[in-house]
């Protein structure tokens, strides 16, 4: 897996805001949390996790896909979808199309969600990965439509679904359309559930707003990366409104685990294997006689010894 990770073509260290590794030269990466320097080759080998303090740096969608799929197995779906400007939105002299153009140039992605089919050590599955570098992975029409199409294809092809999500919140430039994607994506998941196909949601730093309050948290298994900040409302908003000091570790993955909101925390180096194990269990269950469908339940009653 480490080898795969290195094989990603555009895998250069680029500063992307405060969480991005600072690279004094090409050889060392400075951790923003513990301030320690790590040799960049070691940093990549550790899947961009600080070996000193376990800080999980943010990954691009491309890096995440490389980490979770077999080389060459990822086939992208619906890559041609791009944001429209349904409201004719502009704020502070910048139009929404301008903003989208900037996001495309900066992130190299065409929208905030990349979907496709792939294999994980041979196991076929459907994958949807949010690109935080594209407008904070806010959920607009394209995000919602691509996710719903991916879910519908997963149902058609009987594939389990893995989503990797992070989001800064709503796509305000598509206000009502953005809001309705919460309903639209969750409704599609209701159908995935009826087809008894599993949805494994991986929440990575940071994950807030509509994405947390819709398709991610109704998953069959919710996994978070260590230290990831996850919540509905952002910490600053809560602090401002309540004028209360936030508890230690508030909204971290560890905090959510303690409060029963997620199933498990998986350090990045264990994530791939953890998902593979889960997929195996669900694949096995699909072949088991106890698997309940409306028809199966009726015929089981007729032939109890079968």
């Amino acid at each position: 897996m480490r080898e795969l990770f290195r094989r990603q073509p555009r895998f250069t260290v680029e500063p992307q805001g405060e969480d991005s590794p600072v690279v004094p030269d090409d050889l060392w990466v400075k951790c923003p949390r513990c301030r320690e320097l790590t040799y960049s080759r070691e940093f990549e080998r550790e899947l961009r996790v600080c070996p000193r303090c376990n800080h999980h740096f943010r990954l691009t969608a491309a890096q995440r896909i490389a980490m979770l799929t077999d080389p060459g197995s990822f086939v992208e779906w619906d890559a041609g979808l791009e944001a429209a400007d349904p409201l004719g939105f502009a704020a502070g002299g910048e139009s929404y199309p301008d903003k989208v153009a900037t996001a495309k140039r900066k992130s190299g992605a065409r929208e905030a969600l990349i979907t496709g089919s792939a294999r994980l050590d041979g196991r076929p599955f459907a994958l949807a990965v949010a690109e935080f570098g594209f407008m904070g992975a806010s959920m607009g029409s394209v995000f919602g439509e691509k996710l719903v199409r991916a879910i519908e294809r997963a149902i058609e092809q009987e594939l389990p679904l893995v989503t990797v999500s992070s989001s800064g919140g709503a796509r305000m430039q598509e206000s009502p359309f953005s809001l309705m994607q919460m309903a639209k994506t969750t409704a599609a998941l209701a159908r995935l559930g009826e087809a008894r196909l599993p949805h494994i949601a991986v929440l990575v730093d940071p994950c807030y707003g509509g994405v947390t309050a819709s398709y991610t948290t109704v998953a069959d298994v919710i996994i978070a990366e260590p230290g990831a900040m996850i919540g509905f409302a952002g910490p600053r908003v809560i602090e401002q409104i309540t004028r209360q000091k936030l508890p230690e570790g508030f909204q971290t993955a560890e905090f959510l685990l303690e409060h029963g909101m997620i199933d498990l925390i998986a350090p990045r180096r264990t994530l791939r294997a953890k998902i593979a194990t889960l997929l195996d269990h669900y694949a096995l269950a699909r072949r088991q006689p106890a698997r309940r469908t409306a028809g199966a339940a009726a015929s089981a009653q007729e032939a109890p010894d079968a």
Partner: protein
Amino acid sequence: MPETLSAWERVLLARNPARPHTQDYVADLISGFVELHGDRRFGDDPALLGGIGTFRGRAVVVVGHRKGSNTQENLTHNFGMPRPEGYRKALRLMQHAEKFGMPLIAFVDTPGAEPGIGSEERGQAVAIAENLLALASLRVPTVAVVIGEGGSGGALAISVADRILMLENAIYAVASPEACAAILWKDATKAPEAAATMRVTAADLYGFGIVDEVIPEPVPAHEQPTQTIQRVGDAIERHLSELEAMVQDGDAGLDALLAARYQKYRRIGRWVEETDPTRHPNGPVPSHTAD
């Protein structure tokens, strides 16, 4: 209402404390209303009102955000901002509706779900998400009416429905104009500008095909509360009757109702699509024109 009202003027009307609230609609439209309390998990949320009663000849379940008409009431009811236990109470009542075949009527009037420490600890996000999931496949007719503020996910969590109606001066948006202005204009005083740009009005949402009907307010609702409430009641009855006709033959009708509900949300969105089939391993996707 004169068409010349600005989006911001409608925002202020939607928030007018004298405007009829959920409890007023329940009092006038629902006979024998029995309020049902609590989520059976943690507590009873006074920001979310729910119960059963009779609406023009049929037993129904009603849920709605509960705002106050003055500061004291608003403090009691948390300004209509539910906590997770409010959404879980609503979920319990939705399941109640399904169990007994009672249509669900939802009155939407909230600035949003409460942002707070306890709300986060008890899973505000998952409480909303679970309602979205339940409403997507609830096997009874559902009608939601936005009577005031439709604030983001906190509003959506009870308003995914077969029919969404909006009063003319109600608003529905992904964030408050103030929050949008603070984030995108870096200046909360630009809220009026944000309201116009975000297209928050009933006419906007109807134009986008998200809302099924705009209920007129010849004068603002708070100036004629009784007439407004009856007009809303008439609209609910008309839509409920149509939906009830669909499900008359039982399961097949309910399947059709749910399929239509899925398509209603499935269609919402606007995008542009490059339709070069070589880029699409699964073949060309039909070109899409949403609503």
